[in-house]
């Protein structure tokens, strides 16, 4: 409100008390609740009502705060959670993909013997990168994207994308397995995700459940 009203002493004490009780709520939500209550008080007092009656009808600061916290918690609880077992499986898979890429870049996988008729004079060990060239980066990046995208999503988009990408991942992992041992690691990572893929949810809610959820605004 632009013009801050001057409250009678008991009313300002009441508002101060409400403010204190809900101080730990996020500022936006807290200020919105307070401004609603202040508007209620302004209008009621302007209508000539007795301040103590208006405050009694509003309820004690304690009960208002209780309601404010309850509403706030319901709102945050109805938001889809970020860390679910499935999401953790995807994080594990993503970590395995990164491990696979590092492995391909750093660890030698093949051995070359150089020498002459006298015998072996030199043993050179090659990494995947040296053996196969930059395509290792391309394949690595592809797997990181496939495993990483679901980590950025929530809710329905997450479910659909996860299923689709896991299938793609599985196909690629099998393909890579045929040409490189790293494919085994990728296949393992894919399996971790696939194990936790969401089952098809029932489209229709049981009526009482639907009624209960419809009573409350979505989070």
């Amino acid at each position, binding site marked *: 409100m632009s013009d801050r009203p001057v409250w009678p002493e008991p009313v300002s004490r009441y508002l101060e008390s409400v403010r204190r009780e809900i101080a730990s709520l996020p500022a936006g939500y807290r200020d919105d609740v307070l401004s609603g209550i202040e508007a209620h008080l302004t209008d009621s007092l302007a209508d000539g009502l007795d301040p103590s009656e208006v405050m009694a*009808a*509003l309820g004690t600061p304690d009960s208002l705060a209780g309601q404010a916290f*309850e509403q706030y918690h319901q709102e945050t609880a109805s938001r889809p959670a970020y860390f679910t077992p499935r999401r953790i499986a995807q994080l594990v898979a993503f970590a395995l993909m990164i491990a696979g890429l590092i492995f391909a870049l750093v660890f030698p996988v093949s051995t070359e013997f150089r020498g002459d008729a006298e015998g072996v004079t030199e043993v050179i060990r090659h990494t995947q990168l040296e053996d196969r060239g930059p395509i290792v980066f391309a394949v690595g990046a592809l797997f990181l994207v496939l495993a990483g995208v679901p980590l950025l999503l929530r809710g329905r988009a997450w479910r659909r994308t996860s299923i689709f990408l896991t299938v793609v991942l599985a196909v690629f992992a099998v393909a890579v397995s045929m040409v490189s041992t790293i494919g085994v690691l990728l296949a393992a990572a894919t399996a971790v995700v696939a194990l936790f893929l969401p089952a098809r949810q029932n489209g229709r809610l049981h009526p009482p459940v639907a*009624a209960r959820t419809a009573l409350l*605004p979505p989070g």
Partner: protein
Amino acid sequence: MLSLLGSGRWYGVDLSKRLTSAGLIASEGTLYPLLSRMRNAGLVETEWVEADAGRRRRYYELTDAGRDHLEAFRDVWVPLSAAVDEFMEA
């Protein structure tokens, strides 16, 4: 609450009195946390309206999303309530 707001624009004091007298909220003040939550959810919007003698009143009304939500609720509630009535009479 959605239904009340669905009938038009309300200002806080009237809305809280209606809901309290219907026994839907415990005290008039508990309306405001609920309204704040509905506003956060994008179901309700609020507006300051110039009333008589330079006074301003804060009005609440449903957004389009709020209306959709009300419709969805009606679709479930009407048959459910009829079914419950039937059981109660039996």
